[in-house]
């Protein structure tokens, strides 16, 4: 207890710094995966992608990030086990943040594809199991989270497969693809708007005092989606078929129509990413703040302070603006094979999966979900060439990341414990 009372302020400041560092890492690195597909398909310029990412990552974190944050904060560890020794939770969460942030930097330097989600979950499980006791980990919940890592790419792949198939049937494989693109793309835009607002209204607005029933949410979401669709239709009006370009490549004008759709999808992706991955940074921070502010109670019920979500969102934006744009540019320039019609299916499928995972409070990896979605489009014969050997690398990064995050967290945990006591 005394430790919390004595060093409370220092611990909170440390947590803020580490949390910001971690969020910065997410913004610098992870956002590129979310936005790279949009830039790569030439639907967005780099500037537009950054602007969209700033606004929607933030919105996603603020409006739909609560549930995942709660999971990271108090779902993985059983707080009852720590009620006598709250400082252990504080040390643990601090070391988890530090471990994940450092591991992210190391992996970036070596060019390994790692997931921030896997790192932070591994770190929390690691410090709890070793530093506190194997029983302190809520293994049931951890099992669910790990299962969701397998389920999410598969789900995204399925959605992407059927989305792309529908695009083929309704638009690409018809005699007048351009006319049909103009006809059907607004409906896809409606879908994007509906999905985002549905998750926001049903799950995300409790902390700003709005608790809506499912029916009301559906109604409002339909309204929001309709407005989004109208906005899309106005944008589509400007697009005319270009006979010259179409001679060279029959789908040139059609892809322009999909470019408009891709803008909306990119917003959805940024929103989804913000709703899920911000939690990796702010969850542990919220746990520390919770313990300190309740003077050593391992609180179960405290509400999430809004400033913490804002700090996380701010960290992501800072990372994105300072470093992330380079990564997005690199990624975007390297994906030449991704046309808007293909990119849209993959991105929307991943965004949908991630947003729903956020709604149910499951921390999943945006990158891996997107990989699943891309494979889904590939299975629908929608991509020219996919390098399957990368899947092996991704799988290896899963296996390596968990113990790495855990090991680093355990090391920092004992260092902190030694420093403060």
């Amino acid at each position, binding site marked *: 207890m005394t430790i919390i009372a004595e060093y409370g302020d220092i611990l909170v400041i440390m947590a803020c710094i580490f949390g910001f560092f971690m969020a910065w890492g997410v913004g610098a690195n992870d956002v590129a995966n979310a936005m790279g597909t949009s830039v*790569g398909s030439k639907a967005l310029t780099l500037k537009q992608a950054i602007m969209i990412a700033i606004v929607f990552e933030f919105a996603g974190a603020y409006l739909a990030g609560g549930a995942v944050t709660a999971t990271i904060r108090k779902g993985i560890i059983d707080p009852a086990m720590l009620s006598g020794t709250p400082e252990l939770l504080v040390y643990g969460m601090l070391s988890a943040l530090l471990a994940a942030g450092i591991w992210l930097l190391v992996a970036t330097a070596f060019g390994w*594809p790692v997931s921030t989600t896997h790192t932070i979950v591994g770190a929390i499980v690691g410090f709890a199991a070793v530093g506190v006791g194997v029983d302190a980990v809520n293994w049931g919940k951890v099992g669910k989270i790990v299962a969701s890592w397998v389920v999410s790419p598969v789900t995204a792949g399925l959605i992407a497969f059927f989305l792309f198939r529908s695009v083929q049937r309704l638009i690409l494989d018809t005699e007048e693809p351009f006319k049909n693109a103009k006809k059907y793309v607004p409906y896809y835009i409606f879908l994007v708007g509906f999905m985002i607002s549905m998750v926001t209204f049903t799950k995300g607005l409790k902390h700003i005092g709005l608790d809506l029933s499912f029916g009301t949410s559906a109604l409002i979401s339909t309204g929001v989606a309709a407005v989004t669709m109208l906005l899309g239709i106005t944008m589509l009006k400007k697009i005319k078929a270009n006979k010259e370009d179409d001679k060279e490549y029959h789908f040139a004008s059609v892809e322009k129509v999909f470019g408009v759709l891709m803008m909306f999808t990119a917003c959805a992706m940024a929103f989804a990413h913000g709703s899920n991955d911000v939690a990796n940074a702010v969850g542990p921070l919220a746990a520390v703040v919770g313990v300190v502010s309740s003077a050593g109670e391992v609180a179960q019920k405290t509400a999430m302070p809004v400033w913490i979500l804002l700090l996380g969102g701010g960290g992501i934006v800072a990372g994105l603006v300072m470093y992330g744009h380079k990564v997005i540019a690199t990624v975007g320039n390297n994906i030449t094979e991704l046309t808007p019609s293909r990119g849209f299916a993959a991105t929307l499928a991943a965004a949908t999966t991630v947003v729903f995972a956020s709604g149910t409070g499951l921390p999943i990896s945006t*990158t891996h979900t997107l990989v699943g979605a891309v494979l889904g489009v590939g299975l629908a014969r929608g991509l*020219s060439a996919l390098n399957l050997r990368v899947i092996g690398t991704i799988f290896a*990064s899963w296996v390596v990341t968990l113990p790495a995050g855990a090991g680093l967290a355990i090391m920092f945990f004992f260092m902190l414990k030694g420093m403060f006591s």
Partner: protein
Amino acid sequence: MVTNNSIFQLFASSPFKPMQEHIAKAHACAIELIPFFDAVMANDWKEAERLQQNIARLENEADTLKKDVRQQLPRGLFLPVPRTDLLDLLRMQDKIANRAKDIAGLMLGRQMSIPEAIQPIMKDYLAVSLKTSAQALKALNGLDELVTSGFSGHEVDVVEQMIHEIDDLEHNADEMERQARSALFTVEKELHPIDAMFMYQIINLVGDLADKAQQVGSRLQLLLAK
């Protein structure tokens, strides 16, 4: 700069565009036979030699492109069509350029002058044969659209139609080959026996050019077959 980006490594570069570049090169090589024949008929061997070297150079460039495409198709690549079918198609495309080089090389090496009597028919025959390869090039240009539409639907019909036209043109070339043979037959007694034999061989090779173009079409059809 390194990025820790698995997504970005997932996208391999598409082999389809290079395939199109390759057949464009192969056809560009074959089409040089027209001025080459003109030079031979005018007995301008200096010009003929220059054109033959040009054909050899283009054939070489087509070979380089072929190797590049092959390097882009390692195992473990996930393509919308079987990798072997794609490599087969590539081999056929390359044969168009090879045939053109054979014809020019043989004619220049033996300084073969084409008998006056069969010159017009030979010209027409070559033109029809090259039309076949031009049509194959046109069909291949639909490849990127096919990839976009996932090798299904309306685009398939468009390309199928082009493949039918390749077949028709090849039949025309066959007919012309028959006429060229009989024209040569009527004058063969006046020629040196060995010259006559090689003239028949040239007629064969020109027909072969159309044949190879047709086979490019049929290989492309295999890609479309579900």
